[in-house]
């Protein structure tokens, strides 16, 4: 029963990872990261139910707070990038190349 939740969590996590590594749209990449966070949350809640403690719930809350902070910053960055280049393609930004 719990294992089903965990398998679902794994599937969602891997789909998020797939989105991060294959898509070039900044928004999609960002939302894929959110998906991965959600998958992790699901695992937390499922384990919490399994062990009948509420620490998992607290962790899920903290993850949500971090996700909110991340969303605020990431979207600000996206706006800046869009202002600079008028593009949403991650391949446009290759400043890491030496």
């Amino acid at each position, binding site marked *: 029963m719990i294992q089903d939740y965990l398998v679902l969590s794994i599937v969602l996590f891997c789909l998020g990872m797939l989105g991060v*590594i294959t898509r*070039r749209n900044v928004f999609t*990449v960002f939302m894929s990261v959110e998906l991965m966070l959600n998958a992790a949350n699901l695992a937390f809640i499922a384990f919490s139910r399994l062990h009948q403690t509420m620490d998992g719930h607290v962790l899920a809350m903290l993850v949500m707070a971090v996700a909110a902070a991340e969303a605020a910053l990431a979207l600000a960055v996206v706006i800046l990038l869009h202002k600079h280049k008028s593009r949403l393609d991650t391949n446009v*930004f290759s400043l*890491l*190349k*030496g």
Partner: protein
Amino acid sequence: MEHSVTYLGYIPLMPLLGALVLGLLHLFTCRGKALPELLYGALACIGPLLSFIFALVVFFHLKGLPAEERFLVHNAFTWFAVGDLHVDMGFLADPLSSLMLLFVTLIGSLIHIYSVGYMAGDENFGKFFAYLNLFLGSMLILVLASGPVVMFVGWEGVGLCSYLLISYYCKETENVIAGNKAFIVNRIGDLGFVLGMSLLFWAIGAGGFDYLSLKANVDKIAPATGIAICLLLFVGACGKSAQIPLYVWLPDAMAGPTPVSALIHAATMVTAGVYMVARFSFLYASHATAGTVVAWVGILTALLAAIFGMFQKDIKKILAYSTVSQLGYMFAGVGIAAYSAGIFHVFTHAFFKALLFLGAGSVIYALHHQQDIWKMGGLKSKLPKTYLTMMIGAFALAGCPPFSGFFSKDEILFSALATGHTGIWLVGVLVAGMTAYYTFRMIFLVFHGEPRDAEAHAHAHEPPAVMTVPLQILAFGALFAGFLNLPGIFGGSLKVSQWLAPSLVDHHPHVSVWLELLAILTSIAAFAIGITLAHRKFGQGAQEPEFTGFAKFGYHKFYVDELYNAVFVQPYKAFGGLISRFFEPYVTDCHVRLSTWLYRKAGMAFKALQVGYVRVYAIYMVIGLSLMSLFLSQTIH
């Protein structure tokens, strides 16, 4: 019988502390506003003067003891102990080192005081005195050392300081080259010293490696080994004391400031070689063959340097060759086992050579750094004090009775005659005449006759008292030091030789009074002939001659420098060039180059992975995770 006293360690410590304080002061102030010179001068003179006071204390302490107990030792700490080799940072004061101590600290102090006047206005005043103090401190370590290893510390210290001070005016390339020359030639000698020391340790070092233990064990050395040790140590002495074939650095050492020359020639450095041979007298005395070699090398050096000295025109070069020549006498003395005579000549020579150098410094100072004697003349009336004191020094150097040089030199020559070394005696008498000739050639040209450079002559004036007072003290020493060791024929009793007897393996042959009288009379005759020739030739306003034939050969020092350059320096340089051009790039550097090449190529290959897109880096990470998962999956069933 030895006595342990702590204050021995303070003697070298005083100038060394002075060097430290002065050096730090100089370092911290050289960029900003300089401290007053008086402060530096006072700080610089305190150390040597305190050492001199301690030296007096040591002397009187020794004097109060019975003759066979005159050994003061102080082991400050154990320096290192490896297997049989146990080396203490130990100091030994016996009659020999106490005599050295007395004149090294006295003359060193006087030179320090003189330098305060001579170096006034120099921009690196503090640095100069730091080096000077270090120099004196190293020499005191050398003199007081209780064993060869500690002696070597001082030995290297004076070598280093001579390098620093010879190239003190380092803005001119030739001065730096002169400093390098001194250092490199000294290194060659040092190698001999180290080898000799190692051989000595190998032979008898296990029984304790200080002089007293070595002296007790000296009989255990095989004759051949003993001769080898003596000769190797003598190579070291040759380097330090400028004997054939390593004498070439000393005349070039003139590049340093004049007080430095005085210090090198009189009190420190060059006397180290003679002192070392005397210190090992127990070794040399039992190997007469080595002693004979030492004596002949010494007397030939004396002859060669005297020939060079007759033709030089730089006042300091003349004095430098006279030093080499006198050092030759000293080695002749210690070589024929007349150790006390050799050391006594070191003692008197220190006074009159310091006097002559400081006097020459006064002349140079008065003439605004003019060193060519053919551009001087008639300074007698302008520099009366300098003239008088230098005259005393010249008489002492030339060996005129009753000045100090006469007694010490005569003692050596008489010993040579008495022990049957007639050849050495003959050459010695010849050199005595030549010494008188070139010394008075210098005196006549500088002080007598008409001024050759009227303008410089007009501006010349006596230097300040801080410079003339040391001259007068030294003149007093040069005049009367000889009476300390009056031989029996003059009613004396060889006091210095008796004083030194506990430290040295000395022997005085008993020969007839006539032989002694013969030695004295020939010496006086040689002096008289030399001074007469000099007076006839240079007494009245001689003009600079064109050097031709032998004179030119002599002026160019028999082209020995050029010969060394062609035979040793150039092939060595060519060899080095060969190494750097072929061996280094193709053999040693090749490994390094290969590895850098490999890394560069590997970097080029991996550079392709660095595409710069964040997404691609994420892909790398995921690939890594994936591979890890594949691997870890094997472990789960």
